[in-house]
C-alpha cells in the first residue's frame, strides 16, 4: 500500500484562550453570560427537539435494521440444491450462482464446475449411484478422475479455512466403485432420435465429454480412435499405477452402451479422410490431443538414449517395457508428466532416476503430492538446473551437463529463465525430455481447408471452439495445450454446446464468453494443532513404496464405505443456505452461547438441535461471518432486532423463523422441525 501518497502536513496550533485583563475582563465575563443565555434561548425556541413526542411519534426502525440472526434452513428440513442442468444451460446457472455469491468454491474452482457439494451430500446420504450420475453429467469419467484428477476443488475447499479440505477426489472413486454394483440396471442406451450425426476424432476425455453431451441431446455420435483401445492420453500417457485400465475402459464401455459408436484403430487422415468425415457428418469435432514431445535442440540431443516423454510413456503403458532396465534415467522437466516418466522408469527397472527441474523447490510445477509420492519411491529431485548439453560418447548418452538456474520467471511473471555460471554433470544412460508437448495434425488436416498456424496448431476460437471451417470444431489439449484432464473435459462440454447450436441452426456466438480455467487463490492452510481427529480429513491408504515400485499396481488403495460416509459428512455444503450442523459457529462464538447437535445417520441426517442463548450473546456477529453455508445470517444491524428478549434461549424452531419484522414474544406456535427426518423418497 502506498502509504506516502501525500506528505503529512499536520501542524500544531494552540487552543489556549488567554484571559482578558482589567475592564475588558469584566465586560467579557458578563458578555459571555449573555452569549450563553442567547445560545440556550436559541436552542429552546428554534428547531424541533431531537427526541420523540409521545404518543404521536414512535421510534420507527428501518426494515434493514431488523434482520435478526437466523438460519435460512437446516439439513433434515431443507434439501441441498443439486446442479442438474443440461450442458448447454449449465454455464448460465453457474454464472448466476457466482454473481449471487451462492456458488460453492469447489464447484467454482473446478474447470468443469462439477457439483462436488452435491456429490458429497448424496454420498453422505448413502445415495452413491445418484452421486455418481450427478458427477458424470459434468465429468464424464468420475472413476478415472477419481484417481488422477489434480483436484482443484480440494484446493478451493472452504474447509481449508478450518482444518483440512474434503477428500472430493477419493469420493469420486468411491462413488464409482459402488456404482459398479448397479451399473447393469442403470446404464441404458440413450434414445438417439435426432437425424443429424456427429463425428469425433479422438477418444480422450474431452471427446468423450462432448460425445456424452451430444448423445444426451439425442444426436448419434461416431468416435474415431487411432489406437487399438480408447482413452487417448489417459490410455497412452497415464501410467496404470495411477489409473487401472479396467476403470478407464469400464467407463468408456458405459458410454458405448449408451449408444456411442466407437471405432478404434481408425486413424483419421491415413485411414479415413477428413473430407470424408466432413461430408458424411453434420459436425466434426477434433479432439485429437497432443502426440509429440518437445525435445530441446541442445548439443547431443540426437544421441541414442534421448527420448521424448510421450513416446516413453506410450511404450511404458502399452508394452510395460521402455528400454530402461538397469539403466540410469535423467528426466528433464518438473511437471506432472516428468514425474510420471520418472515413476514409470522406476517400475521398469531403472537403477536410478533423477528429476531435473528448472524451477526451484517451491516452484516445481508438478503437484506436490505427486512429487512427494515419487520421492517416497526413490526418485531423486534436483531443482534449479537447466539442460546445457547431453554428454555423449560415440552417439550414446553418458550423462547430462546442466547449468544452474537462478530464476525462472521475470518480474512480470513471464517465463524467462536466468542462468548462473555453475555447471554440474549428471551421469546417466537415458535422458527423457518432459518439457512440453505439441500437436501432430499433419495427416489429419492435410489437404483440407482447416487453418493451421505456423507452429502446427489448429486455429481455434477460444470461447466457441470453432475452427476456420464451419461445422468443424476442436476441443481438448489440441486447443488448450498441455493441461489437466478435467480442463480438457470442460472444453469438451463447451465444444458440445457449440455443436448443439450449430446442429440446431442457432447462433454459436450468442452469449458466449471465454471461460478460462478459474484460478482460485491458494489459502494458507489452517493450523491443525488442537484439531480433533474426528474433524480431520480421511487419509488415503497407500501401498508401501518399496512394494509398489516393482510393478504397475495401484498406489492408492481406496477408502472403505464407512470412511467415505464420514468424509462426505464432513462437507460443509458451502453457500447452500442449509445448515449442516458443522458447529463452526459454536466454536467461534466468544461467549459460547451457541449449541449445535446433529445426527449423521445416512438417510436421516439432521441438525437435531440449534440453540442460541441470548443471555450470553454479545452480538458480535462472528458466528454469521464464520458460517460456511451462508445459512446463519443477519443484516449487520441485528442487535436492534432483539428488543424483545422474553425468550432467553432461541431453539431451532425460533432460529428458523423468518427474520423479517420484529420478533414476537413467546412461542406463538413456532415448532422445531421434527428430527431425525426420513428421506423424502421414502427410502431409509
Amino acid at each position, binding site marked *: 500500500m502506498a502509504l506516502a501518497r501525500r506528505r503529512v502536513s499536520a501542524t500544531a496550533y494552540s487552543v489556549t484562550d488567554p484571559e482578558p485583563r482589567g475592564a475588558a475582563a469584566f465586560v467579557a465575563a458578563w458578555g459571555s453570560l449573555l452569549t*450563553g443565555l442567547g445560545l*440556550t434561548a436559541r*436552542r*429552546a425556541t428554534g428547531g424541533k427537539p*431531537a*427526541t420523540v*413526542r*409521545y404518543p404521536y411519534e414512535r421510534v420507527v426502525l428501518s426494515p434493514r435494521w431488523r434482520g435478526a440472526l437466523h438460519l435460512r434452513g437446516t439439513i433434515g428440513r431443507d434439501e441441498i440444491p443439486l446442479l442438474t442442468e443440461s450442458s448447454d444451460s449449465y454455464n448460465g446457472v453457474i454464472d448466476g450462482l457466482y454473481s449471487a455469491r451462492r456458488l460453492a468454491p469447489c464447484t467454482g474452482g473446478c474447470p468443469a464446475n462439477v457439483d462436488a457439494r452435491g456429490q458429497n451430500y448424496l454420498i453422505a446420504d448413502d445415495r452413491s449411484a445418484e452421486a455418481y450420475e450427478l458427477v458424470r453429467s459434468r465429468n464424464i469419467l468420475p472413476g478415472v478422475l477419481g484417481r488422477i484428477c489434480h483436484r482443484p476443488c480440494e484446493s478451493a475447499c472452504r474447509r481449508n479455512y478450518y482444518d483440512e479440505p474434503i477428500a472430493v477426489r477419493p469420493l469420486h472413486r468411491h462413488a464409482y466403485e459402488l456404482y459398479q454394483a448397479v451399473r447393469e440396471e442403470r446404464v441404458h442406451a440413450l434414445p438417439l432420435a435426432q437425424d443429424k450425426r456427429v463425428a469425433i476424432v479422438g477418444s480422450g476425455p474431452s471427446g468423450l465429454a462432448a460425445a456424452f453431451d451430444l448423445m444426451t441431446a439425442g444426436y448419434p455420435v461416431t468416435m474415431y480412435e487411432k489406437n487399438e483401445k480408447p482413452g487417448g492420453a489417459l490410455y497412452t500417457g497415464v501410467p496404470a499405477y495411477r489409473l487401472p485400465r479396467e476403470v478407464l475402459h469400464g467407463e468408456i464401455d458405459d458410454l458405448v452402451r449408451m449408444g456411442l459408436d466407437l471405432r478404434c484403430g481408425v486413424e483419421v487422415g491415413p485411414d479415413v479422410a477428413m473430407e470424408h468425415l466432413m461430408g458424411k457428418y453434420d459436425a466434426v469435432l477434433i479432439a485429437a490431443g497432443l502426440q509429440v514431445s518437445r525435445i530441446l535442440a541442445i548439443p547431443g540431443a540426437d544421441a541414442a538414449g534421448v527420448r521424448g516423454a510421450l513416446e516413453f510413456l506410450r511404450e511404458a503403458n502399452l508394452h510395460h517395457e521402455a528400454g530402461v532396465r538397469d539403466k540410469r534415467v535423467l528426466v528433464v522437466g518438473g511437471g506432472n508428466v516428468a514425474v510420471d516418466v520418472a515413476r514409470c522408469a522406476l517400475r521398469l527397472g531403472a537403477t536410478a532416476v533423477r528429476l531435473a527441474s528448472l524451477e526451484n523447490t517451491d516452484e516445481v510445477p508438478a503437484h506436490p503430492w505427486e512429487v512427494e509420492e515419487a520421492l517416497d519411491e526413490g526418485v531423486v529431485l534436483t531443482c534449479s538446473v537447466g539442460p546445457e548439453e547431453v554428454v555423449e560418447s560415440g552417439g550414446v548418452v553418458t550423462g547430462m551437463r546442466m547449468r544452474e538456474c537462478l530464476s525462472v520467471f521475470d518480474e512480470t511473471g513471464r517465463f524467462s529463465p536466468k542462468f548462473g555460471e555453475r555447471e554440474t554433470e549428471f551421469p546417466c544412460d537415458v535422458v527423457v525430455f518432459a518439457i512440453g508437448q505439441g500437436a501432430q495434425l499433419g495427416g489429419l488436416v492435410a489437404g483440407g481447408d482447416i487453418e493451421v498456424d505456423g507452429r502446427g496448431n489448429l486455429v481455434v476460437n477460444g470461447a466457441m471452439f470453432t475452427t476456420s471451417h464451419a461445422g468443424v470444431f476442436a476441443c481438448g489439449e489440441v486447443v488448450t495445450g498441455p493441461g489437466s484432464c478435467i480442463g480438457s473435459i470442460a472444453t469438451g462440454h463447451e465444444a458440445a454446446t457449440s455443436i448443439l447450436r450449430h446442429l440446431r441452426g442457432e447462433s454459436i456466438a450468442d452469449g458466449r464468453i471465454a471461460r478460462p480455467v478459474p484460478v482460485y487463490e491458494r489459502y494458507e492452510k489452517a493450523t491443525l494443532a488442537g484439531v480433533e481427529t474426528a474433524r480431520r480429513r480421511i487419509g488415503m491408504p497407500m501401498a508401501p513404496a518399496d512394494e509398489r515400485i516393482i510393478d504397475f499396481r495401484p498406489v492408492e488403495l481406496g477408502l472403505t464405505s464407512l470412511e467415505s460416509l464420514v468424509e462426505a459428512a464432513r462437507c460443509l455444503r458451502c453457500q447452500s443456505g442449509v445448515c449442516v450442523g458443522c458447529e463452526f459457529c459454536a466454536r467461534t462464538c466468544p461467549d459460547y452461547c451457541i449449541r449445535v447437535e446433529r445426527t449423521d445417520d445416512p438417510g436421516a441426517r439432521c441438525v437435531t438441535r440449534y440453540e442460541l442463548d441470548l443471555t450470553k450473546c454479545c452480538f458480535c456477529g462472528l458466528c454469521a461471518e464464520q458460517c460456511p453455508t451462508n445459512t446463519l445470517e443477519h443484516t449487520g444491524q441485528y442487535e436492534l432486532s432483539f428488543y424483545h428478549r422474553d425468550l432467553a434461549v432461541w431453539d431451532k424452531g425460533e432460529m428458523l423463523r423468518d427474520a423479517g419484522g420484529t420478533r414476537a414474544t413467546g412461542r406463538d406456535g413456532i415448532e422445531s422441525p421434527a428430527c431425525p427426518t426420513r428421506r423424502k423418497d421414502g427410502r431409509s
Partner: protein
Amino acid sequence: MSGAAGLAWGVAGGLGAGSAIALAALFGVWWERKVSARIQMRFGPQQAGPFGLLQTLADTVKLVLKEDILPSRADPGPFLRAPLVVFVPIAVSLLAVPLSAGWAPLDTSVGALFFLAVPSVSVLGVLVGGWASGNTYATIGGLRGAAQMVSYEVPRTLSVLSMVVLAGSMRPVGMMAAWRWWWLPLTAVAFVVYIVSSIAEMNRGPFDIPEAESELVAGYFADYSGIRWAIFMMSEYGAILAASLFGAAVFLGGSHGVPGVAGFAILLTEAIAIVTLVMWVKWTFPRFRSDQLMALAWKVLTPMALVQLAVVGLVAAWL
C-alpha cells in the same frame, strides 16, 4: 389581634402558605422540566396528564410512599426535624409578599425586613441537616450552604435597600404602590444583584454548591429520602416562588395598582417570568466553586449593590 384570632390567622396563613408552596412546587418542577427540556432539545414530561402536567403529582405520590430512611450514623433528632426547619421560615416569609395592589397576607410596616430576615433561619436547617446526617458529603454540603447563604444575605439586602430608599417605605404594599416605571432602568443593577443573590440564597444553579451532585452527590440532603427529601425540594421551589413574587412586586411594580384577582394575575405573570429567568440561568451556566462564589458575593455583587444604593440615594435626595 387577640390571641385566639391571631392563632387562627396563623394556622390559616401557615396552611395557605404551605399549600401555595406545594402548588408552586407542582407547577415549578413541571415548568423547570419543560424549560430545561427545550434548552436540551427534548420534550420533557408528556405522558401524565395534558402536556405532562400531572407528572409532578405522580412523583409526589411516589415520594410520599417511599421509605423514610434514617441512616444508622445519623443523629435522629436534628436529622428528622431539619427539613421542617428549612421549610417553615420560607413558608412564613411568603406571607409578607404583597399579592395584589394594597393587599398582603401579612401587611406590616417592616415587611421587607421580615421577608429578608425570616428565611435566613433555614440556614440552620441546612447546617443541622447536613451535620446530623453523619455523612462527609452532607457535612461539607451543610457547611458550604451555611457560608453561602449567610454571605449572600448582604448583597440581597443591599439591593432591596435601594428600593426601600426610593419608595420611602419598608412596607411591601407601599413599595409596590410607590413604583414608577423609570425606576426600572434606574435600579437595573439592583435587580440583577437581587436575582443573582436570591438564586444563591435558594441554592440553585449556578450556585448549587451545597448540593452539587457531581461533587457531593446531593450535599446536605444526600441521605434524605421520601417525604423529607420532598420537603427540601419544596422549600427550594417555595424560595423560588417567594423570591420571584417579591422581586416582581418590589422591582417590577407588581400589580401596577390593579386590585384584586386581576392585580394578582399581573403579579403572577411577572413572577413566572422571573422564575423562567432563574431556570434559564440554571440550565445555561456551569456551577461556581465555593471560593469563586464568595468572591462574587463580596467583590462583585456587594460593591455593585453599594454603588446602586449610592446612586439611588442621590436620586432620592434630588426627588
